[in-house]
């Protein structure tokens, strides 16, 4: 190799792009040529001097890039961990990412949509079939109110004073409650989270049955349907006779007729009436307490007795997805989103593939957003995008997250 050849391959040698044979020939020439040796050494020194450390871009750049390039899938893609050591939340979001990537395939998307439609239709079909038989037996009331106060005075206050239970079917959209800065632990495993979004698996079927029964047992007003044994007992009691029709009693119960409404009850009569009413009222109260603990808990919630409501719903949560959901809501009101976020996850897991589970996902996401845990909130919201009836709300929440991020 000569000096002219060295000149032609100098840059390649400098950057290690030469093949081994040519590089060896160059090194042999350089070893014996002062000019070429000085030339190569000079460039190497300059490279070393001019080597600048890379400037790290702002931490927010990656998120902004993903938000701009992939607005809807940003959270999914962002959940990919950069290293092996990742938090549970990132693993959870990664599962969503994988699920989302599979969902992007047309065949998978169609299959998932079919399953979601079937899952959503099952409770409706079951409810419809059972309701058809129940309708022949019951009269659906507009309100599950006991008899009016005038005739219901002997009734135990706990049974009479409570306002009509709120419709369970109405899912109140709670305002965001700023929780503690620290997000709660994420309870769902990878496999369970997939079931949360799609409602697949045996857990969904079991929870669907429970949820269906719970829904059938409540009229839209939230009171018990009249086909339940406890409701019948209440209707049969003297105190409950006036409410067999379900509405405010139009006629006083026979036991109360002994005491004229206008006049104060005479002492002998009052105790008798009271005594007569007491068992009935106790029965009614017992019936109400025994058969309507959900409504009692809901009443406590509406009265802002959140700790009491939380305990009451927790006692019912094991067999009732709605009570489970309301337990999480009560905890949120009592202790904030910091404690409630993981409780919503628990509900979402237990009630996978049901409206209660989907509500838990949505409200849990709102809690995580309030806690400042945007990626975790996104993961849950994205899982809801494939659920009919929740897609719009989930998207609205995602848009809210994006606006909050852009405004930061």
């Amino acid at each position, binding site marked *: 190799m000569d000096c002219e050849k060295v000149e032609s391959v*100098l840059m390649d040698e400098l950057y290690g792009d030469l093949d081994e044979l040519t590089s060896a020939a160059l090194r042999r020439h350089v070893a014996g040529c002062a000019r070429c040796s000085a030339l190569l*050494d000079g*460039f190497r020194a300059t490279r070393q001097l001019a080597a600048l450390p890379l400037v790290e*871009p702002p931490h927010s*750049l990656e998120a902004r*890039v993903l938000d701009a390039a992939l607005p809807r899938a940003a959270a999914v*893609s962002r959940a990919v961990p950069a290293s092996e050591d990742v938090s549970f939340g990132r693993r959870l979001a990664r599962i969503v990412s994988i699920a989302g990537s599979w969902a*992007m395939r047309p065949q998978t998307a169609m299959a998932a949509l079919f399953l979601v439609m079937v899952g959503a239709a099952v409770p409706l079909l079951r409810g419809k079939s059972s309701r058809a038989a129940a309708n022949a037996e019951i009269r659906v009331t507009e309100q599950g109110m006991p008899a009016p106060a005038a005739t219901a005075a002997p009734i135990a206050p706990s049974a009479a004073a409570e306002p009509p239970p709120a419709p369970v079917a109405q899912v109140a959209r709670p305002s965001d409650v700023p929780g503690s800065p620290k997000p709660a632990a994420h309870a769902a495993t990878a496999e369970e989270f997939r079931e949360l979004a799609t409602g697949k698996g045996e857990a969904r079927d079991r929870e669907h049955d429970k949820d269906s029964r719970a829904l059938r047992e409540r009229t839209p007003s939230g009171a018990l349907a009249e086909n339940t044994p406890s409701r019948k007992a209440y209707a049969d009691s003297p105190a409950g006779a006036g409410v067999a029709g379900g509405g405010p009693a139009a006629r006083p119960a026979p036991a109360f007729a002994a005491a004229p409404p206008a006049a104060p009850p005479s002492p002998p009569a009052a105790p008798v009436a009271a005594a007569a009413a007491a068992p009935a009222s106790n029965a009614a109260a017992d019936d109400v307490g025994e058969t309507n603990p959900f409504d009692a808990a809901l009443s406590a919630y509406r009265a802002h007795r959140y700790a009491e409501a939380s305990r009451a719903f927790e006692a019912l949560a094991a067999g009732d997805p709605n009570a489970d959901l309301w337990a999480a809501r009560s905890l949120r009101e009592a202790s904030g989103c910091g404690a409630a976020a993981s409780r919503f996850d628990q509900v979402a897991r237990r009630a996978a593939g049901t409206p209660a589970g989907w509500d838990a996902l949505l409200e849990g996401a709102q809690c995580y957003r309030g806690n400042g845990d945007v990626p975790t909130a996104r993961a849950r919201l994205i899982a809801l995008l494939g659920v009919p009836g929740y897609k719009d709300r989930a998207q609205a929440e995602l848009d809210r997250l994006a606006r909050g991020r852009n405004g930061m």
Partner: protein
Amino acid sequence: MSPSRTETTDEALMSRFQSGERMAFTVLVRRHQTPLYNFALRQLRSGPAAEEVVQETFVRVVQNAAEFKNAARFSSWLYTIARNLCIDSLRKGGLRRHPSLDEPQRGPHGAHSLGGEGPTLGDRTPDAKASVERAVVSSEIRARVLAAIDELPDDQREVFLLREVSNLPFKEIAIIVDAPENTVKSRMRYALERLQATLSEFEEYARALR
């Protein structure tokens, strides 16, 4: 930045992204955002402008993902987009030099330093007293280097940055800047010669580091 042998190649990731795997795109962003940002930063001399270039580059990658053919290198395509965006930004003339990048700032000991940079040369020496002196010198060298790079002609500077910052081979740089490979190598040599002349007073120091 080239993936290691065990990592998925850029082209494979793009192929997966084209198939709908959005996670693959995130990997690409993480792999390339830092060198891409540095390329734009040294070209535009503005952090916010560099961020915009990075963001817009990846947006265009997504927008045109369907047209990417695996016959070409992904990095060539990526930097072609980024280079064009830098050229557009410079032509608009709305950028001004960012003092924190090009001018040394006084540190707590009165030494000149550039914020946000990596470990100084002095950090590597066990001798505490000498390390302070080296830190001062290395900071000054760094400032001179930045200024020298800034003074390179545009065509030489972009080749220098693509080679030294983004670690792209000359063959790819030729595609990016749309010039023959030998022309690219020549520009690189000229750039190194200019830098060598500008930094000659520190050359001995640089030799001592080897």
